[in-house]
């Protein structure tokens, strides 16, 4: 069992991405859950709520996507 830290790079990148996906996961859950609540309360506003929900999800998801890119960069390096 000998080796250097560089051999661990892919595994560490994987762990890092897993950690990075926690926050956005919770965030998207909150966004989608509140959007469902809003739609249930005011079904006539469904179109607007859906658009806003996707915008909110897109902004939240950005962090997970950055993590995804960094995972590829880190595991290749």
């Amino acid at each position, binding site marked *: 069992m000998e080796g250097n830290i560089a051999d661990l790079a892919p595994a560490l990148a994987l762990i890092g991405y897993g950690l990075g996906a926690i926050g956005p996961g919770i965030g998207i859950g909150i966004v989608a859950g509140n959007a469902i609540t809003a739609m249930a309360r005011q079904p006539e506003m469904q*179109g*607007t709520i859906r*658009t806003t929900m*996707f*915008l909110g999800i*897109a*902004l939240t998801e950005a962090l997970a*996507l*950055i993590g995804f*890119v960094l995972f590829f960069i880190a595991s290749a390096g």
Partner: protein
Amino acid sequence: MILAAECDVANEVICAPADVNELFDFPTIFTIGNFEVSRTEILMIFAAFVVLILFYFGLRQQRLVPSKFGVAIEGMIGFVRDGIGRDVIGPESTKYLPYLLAMFSFLLVGNLFEVTPLINFPISSRMAIPVFLSLVTYLIFMILGFSRNHFRYLIDTAWPKTVPIGLRWLVGLIELVSVFLLRPLTLAVRLFANMVAGHLMLTLLLGSGVIFLAAIPEIGVKGSIGLFWFALGLFMFLLEVLVAVLQAYIFTLLTAIYIESSIHFEH
């Protein structure tokens, strides 16, 4: 290619492609000048042709009562015009409808290639296509932002007047990075990542299912676990149809939202 590798089931029960790139990288078929044409490029052009053919046959005759196919195509156009263009951008959206509609239909066909039998490859899982589309979107909303609001677009983004002074530098910094750097990046990566993940998952589940089932004569009853993988793969297959449509929709919707935020910059 769902059954990714030329797998010699006779010798090896469980075999994987040597490299994950094999699923996304295809050998060059022929070259025109300096351009190496592989399966991806052919599929790209094929997707454009499919879109053209769909629109041609859907809208060929303008009748009072259109055919069923015509209704479907008109429904799609109406969805992009009303659901994406008018709801997000507003009355000005007619100007941007050709771009939105072209992008939506191209991405829809390209993404659905993932679940089309005999093709089984989403063209948007090669980074070049999402990057190109998102750069075009980036150019459009940058040019719109600067031509409508002049230099105020940059200054007000970095120094938002509506935010209390104590937090203004922080919000401004986040906004600056998010608008000018992260928007095009995340737009491209979101589509790319979803398609890559879907393609990989389908390949793994359906591929391992078939390999295990094909190996039943050798490894006996243990190979029946392939049935489970295959069933899971079929479930994912249905899910991927949803993902393909949803990602085309989200890409177009975000383009419309970015265009809108450049036009109505003041709020």
